[in-house]
């Protein structure tokens, strides 16, 4: 991983014209400030053009046809796979399985490798900061196999408690499933330490790369992870496509996942032989055009340079922390900017995150509000919901600075009589009594 601070930050003004949606207004007349990139990014005209051209000029189903369109689609689809391979430095393209997204990739591993490899008493180690997509499939796997789920706890400032690792990582641990970057805290996890320690314990490692691959250089061979998943729509690509990378020996030993067309070598009336990688895990018609669009998104990111993206996001995040620290009663969840990506989640006094997001929206600022598919993380920090601003290469410092006056306006709306400046909420609070608060 190169030092981001050594790279000159990029100038977002150079890239903004490529993104048609950024020039629209919302709420009648307000220019859009799009800070919901951790949920999904926008896409440049280059990607949109690829999709249109694909449908208008080349489209046919892949891996089936002899005719010219089928061959053209085939070539474009496999070219996209090669772009993915190079982007994450996988050894071969066939180790990059096209899926519908990170969630699908994780479920694939859980249902194939997991069902075949885990037994009662085995342990799955994950963390308190995982997105539900890297938690629920393991809960389901534990339910099917009798395996036990454990969680690496979080420190108060949003870091994994590595001091707990010795107790959690044992010969019973068969899998470490951990995110590279938290989708709420922005925390960049120390995979360089986690992966070797998990391997020493004999565990397989799955990395959720959904929040890291779009923002920081990923090298699966240097990481030495066994599996990595990513989502196209979080990196300027279309929705509906993602990638599962796996080590070849694991992918080859795993039973197939979905059965159907495309994933077989031969079918007899009562049995089948699975096909080779990657077809074995790509039953049915794959997300052809989305995958090709993802290839163009990767071209775009390569042209911008991920190191420049990371440096730019650092600058935006530092400014966001400065601006937000001026707001009375505002609490940022997670570590300082030097330990995270461009994600800033916060609470504002007792004002509910949905009300914060609603008022920001009236100023054109799109942030996410809620639990961001991380209920256990929110419970860890004693909140039910946060507002989250998340940045990407096209966001500007001027946009980030808009957060200040917009949040002051939120306070004006809800503190008309200044009856509760500071201090705890004057109201009694009924906490959720649902089992999810303890049982995850």
């Amino acid at each position, binding site marked *: 991983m190169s030092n981001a601070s050594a790279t000159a930050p990029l100038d977002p003004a150079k890239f903004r014209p490529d993104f048609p949606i950024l020039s629209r207004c919302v*709420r009648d007349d307000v220019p859009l400030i799009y800070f919901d990139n951790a949920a999904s990014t926008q896409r440049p005209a280059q990607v949109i053009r690829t999709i249109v051209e694909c449908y208008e000029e080349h489209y046919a189903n892949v891996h089936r046809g002899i005719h010219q369109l089928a061959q053209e689609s085939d070539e474009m689809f496999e070219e996209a796979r090669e772009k993915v391979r190079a982007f994450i430095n996988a050894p071969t393209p066939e180790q990059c399985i096209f899926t519908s997204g990170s969630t699908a990739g994780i479920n694939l591993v859980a249902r194939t490798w997991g069902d075949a490899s885990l037994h009662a008493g085995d342990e799955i180690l994950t963390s308190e900061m995982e997105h539900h997509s890297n938690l629920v499939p393991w809960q389901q796997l534990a339910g099917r196999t009798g395996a036990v789920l454990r969680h690496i706890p979080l420190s108060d400032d949003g870091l994994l408690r590595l001091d707990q690792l010795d107790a959690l990582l044992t010969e019973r641990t068969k899998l470490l499933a951990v995110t590279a970057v938290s989708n709420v805290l922005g925390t960049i996890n120390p995979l360089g330490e986690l992966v070797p320690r998990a391997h020493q314990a004999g565990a397989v490692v799955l990395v959720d790369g959904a929040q890291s691959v779009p923002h920081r250089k990923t090298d699966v061979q240097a990481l030495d992870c066994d599996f990595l998943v990513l989502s196209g729509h979080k990196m300027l690509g279309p929705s509906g496509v993602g990638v599962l990378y796996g080590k070849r020996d694991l992918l080859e030993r795993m039973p197939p996942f979905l059965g159907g067309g495309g994933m077989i070598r031969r079918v007899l009336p009562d049995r089948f032989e699975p096909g080779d990688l990657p077809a074995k895990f790509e039953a049915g018609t794959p997300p052809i055009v989305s995958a090709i669009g993802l290839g163009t998104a990767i071209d775009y990111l390569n042209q911008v340079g991920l190191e420049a993206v990371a440096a730019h996001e650092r600058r935006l995040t530092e400014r966001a922390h400065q601006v937000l620290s001026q707001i009375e009663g505002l609490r940022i969840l997670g570590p300082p900017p030097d330990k995270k990506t461009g994600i800033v989640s916060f609470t504002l006094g007792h004002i509910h995150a949905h*009300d914060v997001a609603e008022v920001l929206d009236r100023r054109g600022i799109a942030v996410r509000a809620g639990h961001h598919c991380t209920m256990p993380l929110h419970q860890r920090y004693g909140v*039910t919901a946060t507002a989250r601003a998340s940045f990407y290469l096209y966001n500007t410092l001027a946009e980030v600075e808009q957060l200040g006056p917009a949040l002051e306006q939120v306070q004006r709306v809800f503190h008309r009589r200044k009856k509760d400046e500071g201090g705890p909420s004057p109201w009694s*609070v*009924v906490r959720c009594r649902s089992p999810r608060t303890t049982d995850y």
Partner: protein
Amino acid sequence: MPPDEEELYQDHILDHYEDPYHRGHCSHATHAHQDDNPLCGDVIRMELAIDPAGTMREVFFDGDGCCISQAAASMLVERFDGRPVAEVRRFTANDMLDLFGVRLTPNRQKCCLLPWRVLQAAIYSPVGQTEAERRNPPEACR
């Protein structure tokens, strides 16, 4: 503030949010129910004291959540405090949105309807009842 923001967070709504009607607990609740909206974490609890004639002598709510859900609960409690249970049964989701008064997006309608949903369940949820009692509610609650 922009006009539609003024509309959503108008004084009437904020009055209920900041100074809610009957936030607290019934001293002798006969019926109670609590539910949440897991998407945003809004929680509402309703406690009712229903007399044998089927009149809600007291209605209280408590909860935690956004301005819309909490203000809607306050309005709903104010509307039905002292009223017959039968009126609650006739009070539809659309009536609740009308009572709230401000145009809401579909996502925020869920916030507004949470207290309505909880009240509708509360009238069928006697405190300390058994499962058999729940299936055969007393006359006043039918």
